[in-house]
């Protein structure tokens, strides 16, 4: 099965990290990513720019409306994702638990709905 692992972390906490901490976190992500590539579970994954750079698109009454945001009042924001292949939910959650962000943020594990 395929799962999308959504990494939610606090942008404000991350912005307060000093340079050496950030480098250490980056290195950890690198090690984790290499691990799941070698394990054959990696299908894709990216880091996202902060919510401040986000735009939202809606079509209302046939008109395309583009707005700044979203700026929902949440403590944690979507900061990145991995797409993985796992045997079942136990394997997927075990991989999610290895993501460095799981220690201070949270990882949402969503099964992919296969198109047939």
């Amino acid at each position, binding site marked *: *099965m395929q*799962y999308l692992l959504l990494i939610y972390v606090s942008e404000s906490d991350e912005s307060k990290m000093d340079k050496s901490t950030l480098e250490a976190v980056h290195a950890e992500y690198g090690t984790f990513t290499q691990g799941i590539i070698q394990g054959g579970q990696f299908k894709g994954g990216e880091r996202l720019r902060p919510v401040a750079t986000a735009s939202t698109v809606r079509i209302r009454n046939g008109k395309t409306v583009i707005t700044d945001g979203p700026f929902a009042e949440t403590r944690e924001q979507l900061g990145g994702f991995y797409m993985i292949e*796992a*045997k*079942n*939910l*136990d394997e*997927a*959650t075990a991989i999610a638990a290895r993501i460095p962000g799981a220690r201070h943020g949270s990882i949402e*594990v969503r*099964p992919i*709905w*296969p198109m*047939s």
Partner: protein
Amino acid sequence: MTQHAEAQTAVATATAEAVFRQEAGRVLATLIRLIGDFELAEEARQEAFTAALEQWPIKGIPENPRAWLVDVGRNKAIDFIRRQALFRSKYPDLEMSAVEQAAAAPNEDEADDAAFGDDRLRLIFTCCHPALNIEAQVALTLRAICGLSTEAVARAFLVGEETMAQRLVRAKKKIRDAGIPYETPPPHLLDERIAGALAAVYLVFSEGYAVTSGENLIREDLCSEAIRLGRLLDALLPNRAAIQGLLALMLLHDARRKARVTASGDIVLLEDQDHTLWNWPQIEEGLALVERALRIKGKVSPYTVQAAIAALHARAPRESATDWPQIVGLYEVLLHIQPSPVVELNHAVAVSMVDGPARALNLLDSLAARGGIDDYHLLSAARAKLLQRLGRKEEALAAYRAALKSARLEPERRLLTRRIAEFDKQPARD
């Protein structure tokens, strides 16, 4: 039909029903393993049972009814998947390989008790998977493992049948779509998953033993199902302290069932219970289990400690001969490994039996001062009793009234009302 044939049919029908009641959980567990889909396995089991009701009265009861039910159920499921594969509507993700897998499984496997045991264990872990909420875990377990009808599960938890049916459908859908496995957890997850399954079992028992609202104090059916689940877990995963501890705890509490309530549904407190009404064989079983659980090496389980406390109460020949110092000690262990306001409350009550009411009242006041359980009627009732023992009548009366205000269970309300009424008969001590 002759009278003889009619009688034979009736016997076969009754046997089929008895077999079904007994084997429902096992047959479903095995069908889920073979088919890999909860709902389809349930349908297949239902069809197998219908076929049994038709065929057994005519052809006689098969030598191994369970294997027969699994076999018929599996074939029904294979037919169903083949039909669906043609239309690809309801189960688009079930591939023909599932059919091959189900068809390839050898028959002698199904006759093997050990294999059935493993299937039920797998299913318990699926039903009690942490990715399902606790209500769903409990409902699925009662439905799939205990074989209770959806209507019975709904009644047990005081929700409508439709609501319960939806809860079960959602849970089964999540199992399928999120890929919750039908597997005994790997060793590094086993203890944690056992703890999860035990929490669900204990919730069933607690709901049966002290329902949280309404007219009846005890729901015996739920207590019995919880004990059945505890026995099953103990048989499938022997020599696990937490399982034996919980089973012992449930056996010892449940053994006092008949003595806890009067014929008119009023509460009888432990100190007033008639010990001859206790289920002594069950107490003996519970006591032996506590001993065994305590001897198992490793971290002590909170269930075992609670069972040991229940064992001391059961061993006391009369209330006044209770080993309170040891009970206080056990509550202190419990405060250390699983602290909670309820444990603090029970600890304070035990302290009052060793060091007197004044020290216990201090403990309760400190608990109340930390807040969070202001409307907890048991706290008010315990305070009232201590105040009464200290001769502080007015405060005791006020505490009983506070307890009555927050108690929701009818028998508890009647008990508190009786306590308040008793004040008028007592001579003032202060």
